[in-house]
């Protein structure tokens, strides 16, 4: 049948791996001695400053969309530095809050996480089950039986 290969191609296309997005909302602490809360992130290891950053005002509720690269399963490291400059230039050791998210991304799924950022310095460990949102995804969108979120499977 001529149509069989085409139908298979269509199904294969539909099942191609997808990207992933984490919608990260941050409740930033108010720090009178810093003008900017500068956020960056990296998978697998803490950010080294080479990647892109976004800057917010301390005390604000911030929102950033983190678009996954190739590695979806590695822990996601997020860093918030409280700086005078929007890129923290010339500030080698600003007050910093670090967060390690056990797992943030799932193929083809938009997830979300809201974090109350404590005053720096602080380090947070974020369990995978705090990441919400797999209900919108394709495929493995089953409920996590521990009752805390829908992303585990």
């Amino acid at each position, binding site marked *: 049948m001529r149509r069989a290969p*085409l139908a298979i191609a269509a199904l294969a296309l539909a099942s191609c791996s997808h990207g992933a997005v984490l919608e990260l909302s941050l409740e930033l602490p108010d720090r009178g001695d810093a003008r900017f809360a500068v956020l960056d992130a990296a998978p697998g290891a803490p950010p080294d400053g080479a990647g892109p950053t*976004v800057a917010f005002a301390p005390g604000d509720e911030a929102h950033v969309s983190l678009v996954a690269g190739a590695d979806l399963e590695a822990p996601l490291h997020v860093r918030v530095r409280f700086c005078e400059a929007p890129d923290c230039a010339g500030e080698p050791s600003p007050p910093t809050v670090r967060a390690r998210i056990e797992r943030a991304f799932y193929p083809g799924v938009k997830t979300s996480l809201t974090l109350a950022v404590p005053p720096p310095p602080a380090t947070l460990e974020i369990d995978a089950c705090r990441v919400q949102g797999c*209900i919108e995804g394709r495929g493995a969108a*089953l409920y996590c039986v521990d009752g805390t979120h829908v992303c585990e*499977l």
Partner: protein
Amino acid sequence: MLSRWAALALALTLTAPATSSAQAEGDVDRARARYAEGLAAVDEARWGDALEAFEASYALSGVGAALFNVATTLRALGRHVDARAALERLLAAHPELDPEMRAAADAMLREERARVATLVLAGLPPPPAPRALLDGVEVADDGARPLRLAVDPGPRHVVVTADGRAPFEWRGTLADGAIERVDVRLAPAATGGDDPEILLWILAACGVALAAGAVALGWAVWEADEPRPDGPQVIRL
């Protein structure tokens, strides 16, 4: 974090009658085993196996989490009509659901209701009506006219047959939530011999058109499902 297994065990324990017999305890053990099989099948994207396992787990345990997974597995299989029914049953029959699971089920039910399409078969005579087949399966005819069928979105095929009449056939692709009216016309059966070569060409052309539609649909699905950032502040890792 409470493990999935521990949570299920707890749920099953909590739902087991205090005076459970050895038979009931055996059912709980089997329910746990089938649930674990379902989880393993999901991890390997064996959705059919997962559905069978979760259905068995639910039949044995009556735990809402198992029925929730039945519903989500049906959804993953594209069986939105059945997923909708499972979610409605879950919400109606399990008042003990924790608020988070109930909220998730509510949200999913809204999605499934929006996805289920409707085929309206107009022109069917009243019962005893001709046989109507939807994707090869005879549909239940409650006598209402026009006959409304809740169907999964995607390519659908309807055949209506009646004695002394040429079969009526309809093919179409239904979008999520679409309502499609099909005017069933049962023409008298042809008496002459149709040219089989022409029929073959027509069938081949239909096949090519169907395949092209499938490719387009696959591309559209792929595009539509790609998650996109919500806001202007974006970091690409």
